[in-house]
């Protein structure tokens, strides 16, 4: 009987390190490790030599110095007496704002365009194809710059909105008028939108350095509560249907659950919208949305929406026609076929590339520099960097923040991806 013995270890020769596959990977890894360490040591050595030569050190203490510059869009309280660290936070919040709103808007437009591109309507399908091809094949910087040019060059000046008694007497129309029942004014100084005012406000709580409005918290809580009750009623209806075969009528209950708590909270807080009004040469009241923000937001949204449209279209096309036919054969109506059969399968194809589009949008928001929107790049990587001369620290910190942001987004979306993933045995 033949037996197999291991190759005797005693016969080890030096050449086996290269020619024997058992040892070769170890050899390669040691060589790679050596090269990597050598490279890293070389870079660090250069770094310390250079720093010493310029009389600099590696220190992040500048973050606690007075910033001394103003930021034109601050979502958390900030004055130029605050620290560089706080300026960085303001920039980060601005980045997050444009990234979040951009992702939401791009998803909505992208899904609509992607579905319409598959429509049987010849004209609409062609129009959507043209939109997608034009926006995909031109740099996003161009769209941001063009939108900015539209907002600063084409939109009317605030004084064009003025209506004088003389004009009324002569029956003249003003050169420009506000949109949406006189609540939104798009001007070359920025877009004025209504402001939310609570007449019976509950004040703010200070979370360390960050003031949080109790009113906003309450509103958010009521929305979350509404959604939870809404889903609970739906689940309950499904249970009843599974037990008895008859689905109870719940739409009015669900509607009430969704909007009831919100309405009660809003009325209790004395909610009202304060419209911007023209006073003198500019609008007062309401909220001023900067042109740079609008340009960045719209530019990024339209560009990313073109990509999302393609992803959605590919996702829907990936589901074979047999699925639709099988659903029809079971007697499902088109709406339910979409909801119960096509969409859950298409989402699996759509979500992973969608995550990378969200990441791209977030990273592209650093193009804010082109329109002087004060995002993270504008504060930490812009004015703070120039004032303190700490390029190394600022850039490292900025890269770290973007990296963490990317990882957070992708891990958050991966959780969702796992929820819709095919449950295999």
């Amino acid at each position: 009987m033949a037996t197999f013995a291991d190759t005797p270890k005693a016969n080890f020769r030096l050449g086996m390190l290269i020619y024997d596959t058992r040892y070769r990977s170890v050899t390669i890894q040691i060589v790679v490790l050596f090269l990597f360490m050598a490279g890293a040591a070389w870079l660090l050595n250069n770094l310390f030599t250079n720093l010493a030569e310029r009389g600099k050190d590696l220190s992040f203490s500048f973050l606690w110095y007075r910033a001394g510059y103003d930021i034109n869009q601050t979502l958390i309280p900030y004055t130029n007496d605050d620290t560089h660290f706080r300026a960085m936070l303001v920039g980060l919040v601005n980045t997050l704002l444009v990234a979040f709103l951009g992702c939401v808007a791009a998803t909505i437009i992208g899904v609509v365009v992607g579905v319409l591109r598959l429509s049987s309507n010849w004209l609409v399908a062609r129009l959507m194809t043209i939109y997608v091809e034009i926006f995909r094949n031109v740099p996003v910087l161009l769209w941001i710059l063009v939108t900015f040019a539209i907002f600063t060059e084409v939109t009317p000046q605030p004084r064009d909105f003025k209506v004088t008694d003389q004009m009324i007497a002569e029956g003249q129309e003003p050169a420009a008028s506000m949109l949406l029942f006189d609540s939104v004014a798009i001007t070359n100084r920025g877009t004025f939108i209504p402001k939310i005012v609570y007449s019976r406000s509950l004040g703010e709580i200070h979370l360390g350095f960050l003031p949080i409005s109790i009113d906003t918290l309450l509103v958010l809580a009521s929305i979350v509560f509404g959604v939870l009750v809404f889903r609970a009623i739906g689940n309950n209806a499904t249970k009843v249907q599974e037990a008895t075969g008859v689905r109870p009528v719940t739409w009015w209950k669900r509607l009430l659950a969704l909007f009831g708590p919100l309405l009660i909270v809003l009325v209790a807080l004395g909610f009202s919208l304060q419209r911007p009004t023209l006073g003198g040469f500019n609008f007062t009241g309401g909220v001023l949305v900067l042109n740079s923000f609008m340009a960045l937001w719209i530019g990024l949204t339209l560009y990313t929406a073109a990509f999302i449209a393609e992803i959605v279209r590919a996702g829907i096309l990936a589901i074979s026609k047999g699925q639709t036919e099988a659903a029809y054969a079971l007697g499902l109506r088109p709406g339910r076929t979409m909801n119960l059969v096509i969409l859950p399968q298409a989402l699996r194809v759509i979500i992973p590339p969608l995550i990378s589009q969200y990441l791209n949008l977030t990273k592209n928001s650093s193009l804010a520099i082109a329109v002087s929107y004060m995002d993270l790049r504008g504060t930490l990587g812009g004015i703070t960097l120039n004032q303190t001369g700490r390029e190394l620290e600022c850039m490292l910190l900025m890269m770290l923040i973007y990296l963490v942001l990317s990882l957070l987004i992708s891990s958050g979306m991966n959780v969702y991806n796992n929820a819709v993933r095919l449950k295999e045995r």
Partner: protein
Amino acid sequence: MSDLHSESVAFVRDTMLTPQSPPASQAGAIKWLRENLFSGPMNTILTILGVGIVVYLVNLGLPWFLHSVWNANSLAECRSAITATWGPDAHGACWAMIRERWSQFMFGFYPNVFYWRPILALLLLFVALAPILFAEFSNRLTIAGGVVAALVVWLAASYGEWLPVGILAVVAAIAGLLAVQGTKWPHNLIWFPIVYAGIAFWLLWGGSIFTPIAALAGIVVGWLAFRILAPIAGNIVAVTAAVVAPVLWWYFGSEPVIDLLSRALPRVEPFWLPPVDSDQFGGFVLAFVIGLTGIAFSLPMGIVLALGRRSDMLLVKALCVGFIEFIRGVPLITLLFTASLLLNYFLPPGTNFDIILRVIIMVTLFSAAYIAEVIRGGLAALPRGQYEAADALGLDYWKAQRLIIMPQALKISIPGIVSSFIGLFKDTTLVVFVALLDPLKGITDAVRASIEWKGIYWEPYIFVGAIFFLVCFSMSRYSMYLENRLKREHR
């Protein structure tokens, strides 16, 4: 029975009736309209909305296009011409700006007298690309060649005396080589792209011709080392030597040789071109230099990274994953700023190398990480049987990759790779933030800063956007052609 019946029938029709034409609503344009535009209430609403949008856009843009002015020297002149022809309220495009600033958009601040150099480089690029892009000689390629030839004649008429000389020399050289090697064009030109890299560098930046020759000689040295050592010492030693020998040559051997040769020969045109500084580059020359170099280097680097990420070796894998995820996690702008602000910290004191080169390195690294992920997807999509079959045939790792795995994986990932390339080309506009003159913002701002063209917004954006669209759209069409050509199933 049947006889009886036949007698009872008075008349049997023996010819067919001529078919009637279908009702008007079931044929022709009306049927098409009903099916494609008005098939239901929802579709009708969409159609009306679509028509509304088209009408609005045409209304907005068409008069502006129709009132275009092509001959003027400033925006004010343009406007007065429009007012004179179309009345005081008319608006119109002022394409005269592009006529006047054409060379700035194309070449940035590249010296006028040397315009023939980037043009020659661009024309040679077509020759260099042909063997890579097209496997066989087809009618379309002939047409493309004709277009290029026409372009050559036109450009030669416009730009200087050295252009025709250069082109004639190249055409003669290629014709001679083809005559020697046989006429299997373009396959026999596959070596040309490597030589092209040296030629293009020399043409664009100038200096001694021996600099690119010495650089290319390094590749020859490596190849020779491999060919000589492979039969004697085995593959692994030969590969190591093929890597080490060129490095040694570039580091120690090349400079004395360049010095010696350039001193021996006079500084006259065929051997020496007047150098052009990197900060004189701009416009589409810059975009193409960065974009094409990035594309050329990021693909091989992406393949290596993808293989590293799928490797069994823990350390190699960890390094590749770390690199890829880091690059994909930060915006390109921060990398470009790193290139312009921080790179000096990490290099030996006193080193200062070219800003365009730094930008190219960063753009290449950035794109390589994305391409690595695309190729990893392609590798993961290959059935395991392919790997096992390669092992069963006794192929070693590199042979298996080269002959079995990569051809299939790359074929699957073509669309992703090309869209990475398109993204890279579009991203070349971001170099404006490290003070290079890209065509989109750099040159446009420079044009707008002059008194003549102050306040011109839409024309430069449309012009630059159209060129980007043309390039990127052709790239995506080419990827579709390539996918089609490489399709092996369902033939």
